[in-house]
């Protein structure tokens, strides 16, 4: 048997999680990874291999969270696929605290049962077990959902492995650039191009039901706001007024958009639009730049960027109207506010010693924690569990994505080789 301890040590030092095509490089080792085992799943079906290596996907998800260190298959003393075959002493010896076992069984031409069980080694009992139906088309999501359940059971935090991200890429094409709006699984797989253009695309925003994306397009050399339905690719132009149209964000009930309009005079202000009627109501009138509106989860407030006091700071205003109230006071530049879905934290772009970094303010304590370490970090977006953020940073001249936990302890570079990437936005929890 290989020396498990030296192997674990090597894993800690390298801190690289390989998840199929998506390489993740850990930057901070702020949390001790918990040793667990994800045993290769059993398979019963007509073809030699199961349609997806479910155990590998679960293992990759848990590794990428930064909180777990699944042991190598070669170190496993046994590889049960059913609960009755579990021998807890074997797992105690290896020092793992939890074991995932399971199986995939073909039940029809394109139908599978995916079953898993999570065991607590010390307590010698089952923590959670599930059987889910899948097709070849849905088995990835089913596996991610299994990983979510395992993760939540072991950490108390809702998993976000079954979620998506949208982002914009820019590629050099001859004299100009080609911009693309992409949606992929949160692990980087399954990327789909939603829209492409020779003119810039900006500010993608998810609808609360995850079915639509709003975004700004500069096609025709002026800015317009579109809402596109992902499944069909159909889109409607919801705002193309003279001047600036920008920074759209869906309300929590999905019926309204906050947006920025500049008009002919170029005075950028916050407006709220009813999507059905397209009626807009003006919220701010100050001659400063007021933009980057973002909703509170209860739908009552809009947080936004304003430079009415000289430089950009975060303000909030009641959706019903009224006076804008200043929220950020630390430093000379705070912009691009985003509330966490649980309403407890506010992420922003914060100028810190000459560097633009992602910072998070606890809305109760009002303290500010700088989370990132780059020079041009931007576009923070919370995962729907409010625990992790994704954002864009620069590596030489290319934009790349990083994720960081809201406490700053686990930060990872998401190296995906997709060129110049910007404006990542994490989807809400997905419906099935």
């Amino acid at each position: 048997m290989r020396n498990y301890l030296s192997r674990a040590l090597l894993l800690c030092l390298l801190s690289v999680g390989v998840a199929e095509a998506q390489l993740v490089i850990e930057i901070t080792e702020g949390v001790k990874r918990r040793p667990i085992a994800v045993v290769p799943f059993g398979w019963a079906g007509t073809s030699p291999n199961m349609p997806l290596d479910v155990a590998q996907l679960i293992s990759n998800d848990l590794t990428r969270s930064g909180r777990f260190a699944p042991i190598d298959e070669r170190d496993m003393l046994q590889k049960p696929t059913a609960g009755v075959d579990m021998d807890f002493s074997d797992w105690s010896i290896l020092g793992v605290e939890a074991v995932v076992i399971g199986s995939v069984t073909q039940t029809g031409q394109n139908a599978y049962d995916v079953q898993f069980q999570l065991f607590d080694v010390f307590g010698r009992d089952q923590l959670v077990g599930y059987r889910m139906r899948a097709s070849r088309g849905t088995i990835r999501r089913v596996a991610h959902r299994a990983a979510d359940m395992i993760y939540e059971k072991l950490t108390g935090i809702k998993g976000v492995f079954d979620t998506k991200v949208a982002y914009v890429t820019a590629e050099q094409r001859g004299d100009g650039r080609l911009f693309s709006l992409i949606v992929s699984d949160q692990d980087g797989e399954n990327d789909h191009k939603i829209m492409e253009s020779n003119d810039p695309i900006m500010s993608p925003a998810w609808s609360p039901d995850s079915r639509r994306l709003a975004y700004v397009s500069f096609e025709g050399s002026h800015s317009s706001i579109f809402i596109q339905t992902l499944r069909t690719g159909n889109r409607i132009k919801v705002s193309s007024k003279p001047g600036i149209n920008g920074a759209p964000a869906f309300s929590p009930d999905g019926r309204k958009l906050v947006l920025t309009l500049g008009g002919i005079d170029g005075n950028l202000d916050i407006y709220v639009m009813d999507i059905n009627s397209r009626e807009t109501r003006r919220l701010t009138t100050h001659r400063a730049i007021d933009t980057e509106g973002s909703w509170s989860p209860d739908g009552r407030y809009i947080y936004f960027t304003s430079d009415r006091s000289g430089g950009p700071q975060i303000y909030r205003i009641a959706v019903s109207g009224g006076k804008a109230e200043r929220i950020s006071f630390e430093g000379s530049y705070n912009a691009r506010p985003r509330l966490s879905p649980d309403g407890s934290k506010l992420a922003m772009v914060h100028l810190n010693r000459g560097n633009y970094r992602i910072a998070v303010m606890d809305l109760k304590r009002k303290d500010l924690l700088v989370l990132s370490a780059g020079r041009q970090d931007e576009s923070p977006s919370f995962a729907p569990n409010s625990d992790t953020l994704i954002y864009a940073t620069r590596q030489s001249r290319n934009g790349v994505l990083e994720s960081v936990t809201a406490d700053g302890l686990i930060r990872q570079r998401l190296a995906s080789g997709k060129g110049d990437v910007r404006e990542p936005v994490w989807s809400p929890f997905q419906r099935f």
Partner: protein
Amino acid sequence: MFQYKSLIASFLFLVLAACASNVPDPDPVEATYSDDAAATTDGYSDGGFGSGEDVPYDPMGGELATIIYFEFDSSELRPEDSDIVARHAVQLSGNSSLRVRLEGHADERGSREYNIGLGERRSQTVRRMLLIQGTSSAQISTVSFGEERPVSFGNDEEAYAQNRRVEITYTN
């Protein structure tokens, strides 16, 4: 011996120059762009970004600059640019069928949508100057690309200075 000393001297000079370029300049020295802008107008507008109409339209002949540059965090016209804007105003007020689009830009620092605002502020500065000098509002449209259409992709002050600009594009 003599060659050795000059080698050291040039090495030191290079080191100092490199060091100097790394020091952030809090008060950027006003760059003398006016002559360069006129000379390199075609170069910039042939960069191929957006404005399909590459050749600046100047019925009076002669070279008329179509790019106005701005200082960091500023949307104020520099004195030497007022003259350039004034000459565009003369053209526009003299021919009401002329249409112009003012495209505002910002450097890449900071938040994207806020930079749209900075670019728009710069467009509006030029627009107001044109209006004051007799251009009619119907002749002018503005757009801001923020940091989305840089002409220079570097991350140093020189690149930033080239990106903080308004491009004046005749659209008919």
